């Protein structure tokens, strides 16, 4: 079942996306950030926190703040080696003010860089091992048929999350996302350890990642199905959390090139620089990114702003390609958010779902359920979710985030999740073959609508290519939200690289990324 859109137009849209991202990429390559340096240190083996709970990565970056433009990896690697210390021991000594590195200069900068490289290569073997484990499971259990059933857990307590996740898996879920505590995106550090309290979700920590990975592997062996674990590589610690996710065997991470700018008021350049490294790490760790276009439709209207979703998907795709992610790791986002009472609302939804699928044929596509027009009428909500699930299977979406009938009321109850899974299984089983039996009438309303959205997305990208992405964001072209180029949180953590800047991480990640393609 295809719309038969003009492939020349789609190619043109991609060219425009390339033109939009090109000047941004030049800025990305010219800058580093606090979180890029922290992620690099973590991928050299640094972990843990000092007596006050400040992560060692933050201790070192704060200590060497004035030297960020040189790249901290060689300084830390060489300083540790000269003293016969591990990076953790070095950071501990710095935290206790027993070592001061602020004026430290390695005698041989090339040797320091080489030492950093050795540490990175050693640490990356852990990611390699996690990937081998996943591969073994997938070989043994097979890959699930899309759309994958994706549900969330959000208790705030990782132990309780694990109980609920296991139940969901037994009921049929394939993908489990641990929703993050609402405050975490603006924390400029990643909390440490197992956590049992959060607000509307559970803190993303490396220990929590590991705990949930183990829980899902356990239940996965029980039901003989590989279970995909999702968390968020977003906010002020985007690349660091991507690193932790890769180290702990996560399969998907929410990761958008602009979400933090628009919805969390994070500095634009900070976000662009951070998303690039986070996506390189995701490419290395073979993590499917989930982009956040669904959020546009919570502030803007789903009919009027449909083209902004497509335009943003194309930009996210381009940024992702530039970081080395292949199409099969791009869970580009969109959503089922047209007001149901609008005449022809279902036709709008179907046209949009077909459009996104056709523009991104090799991508898994992350399809988000109704939220904006959900009310306390759980029965109406359940009907809406049924239509959403039907559309997902009919149009071949890859990752179906299941809607909860109690959306907009509270975090899902056990039975809400169970009913959502039951609904999706029933619909997917009943209609999986339908699309092969149907053809869309050429020139019909669906085709006209999709074509019009594509045209508008092209016009929007052309304007952005003309004025620049920063200006477009400043004018509120995405989600009706305006953000100034020099505004937002975390802007002080962005530094222009000096000519002497050294960070071996991107090149090492690139060996695998580019070797694979």
């Amino acid at each position, binding site marked *: 079942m295809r719309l038969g859109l003009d492939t020349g137009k789609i190619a043109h849209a991609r060219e425009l996306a390339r033109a939009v991202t090109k000047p941004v990429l030049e800025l990305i390559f010219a800058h580093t950030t606090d979180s890029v340096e922290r992620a690099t240190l973590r991928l050299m083996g640094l972990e843990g926190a000092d007596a006050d709970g400040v992560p060692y990565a933050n201790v070192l970056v704060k200590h060497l703040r004035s030297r960020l433009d040189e790249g901290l990896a060689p300084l830390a690697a060489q300083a540790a080696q000269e003293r016969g210390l591990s990076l953790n021991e070095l950071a501990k000594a710095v935290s206790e003010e027993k070592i001061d590195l602020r004026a430290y200069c390695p005698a041989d900068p090339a040797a320091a860089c080489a030492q950093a490289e050795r540490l990175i290569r050693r640490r990356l073997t852990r990611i390699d091992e996690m990937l081998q484990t996943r591969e073994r499971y997938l070989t043994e259990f097979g890959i699930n048929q899309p759309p994958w059933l994706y549900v969330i857990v959000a208790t705030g307590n990782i132990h309780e999350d694990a109980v609920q996740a296991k*139940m969901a898996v037994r009921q049929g879920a394939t993908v489990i996302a641990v929703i993050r505590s609402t405050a975490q995106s603006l924390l400029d550090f990643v909390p440490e350890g197992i956590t049992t309290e959060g607000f509307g979700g559970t803190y993303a920590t490396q220990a929590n990642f590991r705990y949930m990975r183990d829980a899902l592997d356990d239940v996965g062996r029980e039901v003989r199905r590989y279970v995909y674990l999702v968390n968020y590589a977003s906010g002020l610690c985007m690349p660091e959390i991507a690193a932790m996710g890769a180290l702990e065997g996560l399969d998907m991470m929410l990761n958008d090139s602009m979400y933090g700018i628009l919805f969390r008021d994070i500095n634009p350049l900070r976000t662009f620089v951070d998303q690039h490294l986070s996506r390189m790490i995701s490419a290395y760790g073979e993590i499917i990114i989930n982009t956040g276009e669904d959020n546009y439709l919570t502030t803007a209207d789903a009919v009027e702003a449909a083209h902004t979703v497509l335009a943003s998907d194309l930009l996210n795709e381009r940024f992702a390609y530039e970081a080395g992610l292949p199409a099969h790791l791009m869970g580009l986002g969109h959503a089922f958010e047209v007001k149901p009472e609008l005449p022809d609302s279902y036709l709008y939804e179907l046209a949009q779902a077909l459009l996104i699928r056709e523009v991104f044929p090799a991508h898994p596509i992350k399809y988000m359920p109704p939220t904006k027009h959900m009310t306390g009428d759980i029965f109406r909500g359940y009907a809406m979710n049924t239509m959403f699930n039907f559309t997902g299977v009919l149009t071949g979406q890859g990752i179906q985030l299941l809607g909860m009938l109690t959306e907009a009321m509270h975090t899902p109850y056990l039975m809400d999740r169970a009913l959502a899974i039951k609904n999706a299984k029933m619909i997917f089983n009943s209609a999986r073959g339908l699309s092969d039996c149907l053809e869309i009438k050429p020139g019909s309303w669906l085709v006209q609508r999709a074509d019009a959205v594509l045209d508008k997305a092209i016009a929007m990208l052309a304007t952005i290519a003309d004025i620049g992405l920063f200006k477009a964001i400043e004018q509120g072209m995405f989600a009706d939200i305006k953000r100034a180029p020099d505004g937002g949180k975390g802007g002080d953590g962005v530094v222009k690289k000096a000519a002497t800047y050294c960070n071996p991480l991107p090149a090492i990640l690139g060996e695998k990324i580019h070797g694979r393609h």
Partner: protein
Amino acid sequence: MDATNVKQVDPTKVRPYGDTLDDGALQMSFTLPLPLTPESIEAAKQTALGLGLRDASVVHSEDLGGYSFFVVYGHTRKTIDLTQIHVPKVETKVYSREQINEQIRTRFGRKLVVVGACIGTDAHTVGIDAIMNMKGFDGHYGLERYEMIEAFNLGAQVPPEKLLQFAVDHKADAILISQVVTGRGFHKQNLTRMVELVEAAGIRQRTLLICGGPRIDHRLALELGFDAGFGRGAYAEHVAGFIVEKMSERSLV
């Protein structure tokens, strides 16, 4: 049908109506932290009987992977005396946007300043955006579109202290607070904190405090020390109308 033959509702003894007046029919669903067994099904039934239901009947039971899910019907004997019920409501005239602009012009002769935000950890701006942003929601324009209102939407995760400072600096006539995430009662702490701050700053008398969100109602708002609370179905004109009326009532100019 002859209306005289239809049994009339007694307002002093109201009961749920399933398919016969006063049958007291209720439907409910819940989960027990028990595997599905004959005993857990009986436990579900007794849960309903314990709530005072007659003829409790477990019409559906299902294993959720170690826990169990039930759909239960029953009949309550409980009656409610409607004449004894008094619900606090936001009592205000409903104006159109144009009327509100006109009222502000004639009553105050200046623009009113309204500052809004999601405070604390709440990052969900859907509610505050619906009321404040130019575009509004569902065809109802937001306060930014009102000629006689100067609206500042500070967005998500604003610390209460920062919101207060902004309100003081801009001599706000009203502060709007949206709380969408309401899990485990922490929205109440956020809202209470805001009231305390505004009182401590000595501007409570001249500043209207209004909260909103899908789980907020007027009664809760009053309990927490706010002037009004708006829930689902409220649009910008309701909030603006309330501000105009309440300011007049308090002789604020």
